[in-house]
């Protein structure tokens, strides 16, 4: 793969580009931690940790705005082309994805807070935790791929998008069974359902990031038709009556 091993003639330009990439990596680390902590707060019913996750989300928003500012400034002042342009644009889009991921993690933590006042539903919480770990792992893998510019890692995440969907569908059916068996669990189950949905969305953002990494490195867009099971790419949940 073609890589920019040479230094920019204008060194400040290269430094600015590297700064943006570093900011994105830093933001990725933060988002990863947010996901992990949110899952943890749910599984441990830890209200304090949940509060921390909610509070830390503002930092992600700020980082995203900062990256965007820097990228816009770079485009205006340096007129990047080719790899540099792709890197800048990818950084902006990945930052947006990460910011959305942060919002979703915060939402998970909020619902965890609400759940902590209700009866615990141990097996379901464990399912959520499993799904959360999977999503967090995907996010970590894709961010590692971003930092190391490894296209294989990104492609791996991108092609295993279905795992999360499968988890989501299984959890959905499980929750449905619970709610039908014992209507008192409906409140808890509804929270858990939204949590699962949020985690599934985080998984989508990881896929988006994988696509951006591919574009950044190769300049080509990945085919939009991902290798899913079944031709229908609408998540099962959206077919369900609300």
């Amino acid at each position, binding site marked *: 793969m*073609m890589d920019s091993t040479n*230094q920019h*003639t204008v060194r400040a330009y290269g430094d600015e580009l590297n700064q943006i990439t570093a900011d994105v990596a830093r933001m990725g680390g933060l988002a990863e931690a947010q996901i992990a902590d949110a899952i943890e707060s749910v599984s441990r019913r830890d209200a304090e940790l949940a509060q921390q996750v909610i509070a830390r989300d503002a930092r992600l928003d700020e980082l995203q705005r900062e990256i965007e500012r820097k990228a816009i400034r770079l485009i205006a002042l340096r*007129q990047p*082309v*080719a790899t540099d342009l792709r890197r800048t644009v990818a950084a902006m889009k990945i930052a947006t994805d990460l910011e959305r991921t942060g919002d979703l993690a915060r939402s998970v933590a909020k619902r965890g807070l609400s759940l902590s006042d209700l009866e615990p539903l141990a097996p379901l919480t464990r399912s959520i935790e499993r799904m959360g770990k999977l999503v967090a792992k995907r996010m970590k893998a894709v961010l590692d791929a971003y930092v190391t510019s490894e296209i294989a890692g990104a492609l791996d995440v991108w092609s295993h998008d279905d795992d999360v969907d499968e988890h989501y569908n299984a959890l959905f059916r499980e929750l449905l069974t619970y709610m039908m068996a014992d209507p008192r669990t409906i409140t808890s189950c509804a929270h858990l359902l939204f949590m699962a949905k949020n985690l599934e969305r985080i998984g989508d953002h990881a896929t988006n990031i994988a696509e951006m990494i591919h574009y950044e490195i*190769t300049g080509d867009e990945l085919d939009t038709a991902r290798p899913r099971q079944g031709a229908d790419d609408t998540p099962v949940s959206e077919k369900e009556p609300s």
Partner: protein
Amino acid sequence: MDAPVIDTRPIVAAGPKAPAHGIKVRTRDVSVFYGDKQALSDVSLDMADRAVTALIGPSGCGKSTFLRCLNRMNDTIQGARVEGVIELDGEDVNARAVDPVALRARVGMVFQRPNPFPKSIFENVAYGPRIHGLTTSKSELQDVVEQALRRAGLWDEVADRLDQSGSSLSGGQQQRLVIARAIAVDPEVILMDEPCSALDPIATARIEELIDELRQQYCIVIVTHSMAQAARVSQQTAFFHMGQIVEIGRTDELFTNPKEQRTLDYITGRFG
């Protein structure tokens, strides 16, 4: 005269936007020597009709030399020798039967610095048609001059002062006057050698707009140092380095996703 047997498979940017109007100028293995020094080696490039081909590359990479081959301006330099095949509409321009003077009426050229003759605006534009005898009456010549000035987007600015000196115009106007002078002889190809390098950004923008309009009628080949300009005005870009073509590509592709490392390094400003 035997037509040279050459590979006529197009050497142009591939991709979905293949040239719609066919190939106007075809070059194969063009090498240029100035005395013992080789300035260009084995350049093969096709330039589509009604499209802008941009030649980019660092100073001394041979892009201007290549441009000057296309209208045989290298003939005017003592010790210059051109090898290879250059065809205009399938006809070898270096053939003995081709008169360079006649060729240059078909292949016009615009230079780096605006170089109007120190004569009136009218005379500047009328000179070409006059020496080639393109008009038979004074009124016809006036029409040709007006048409050329209109097409160059200069008529409204100079209509009331055609008898003033060409050098009284601003730099951008002079360059448009020079373009009008070139199109007054009704060429098929227009070569531009860094036409905006002496102009301010606004004058540059007007020339670029003009190039975009002229593209509807002519095959335009432009040498430019400004990659942004190549990106803005051309449909096809060729990157020259050390007297060779490194990469030919559709302009939008070459500037977002070049295939060659040297091209990438050059356009992103990493040239070592």
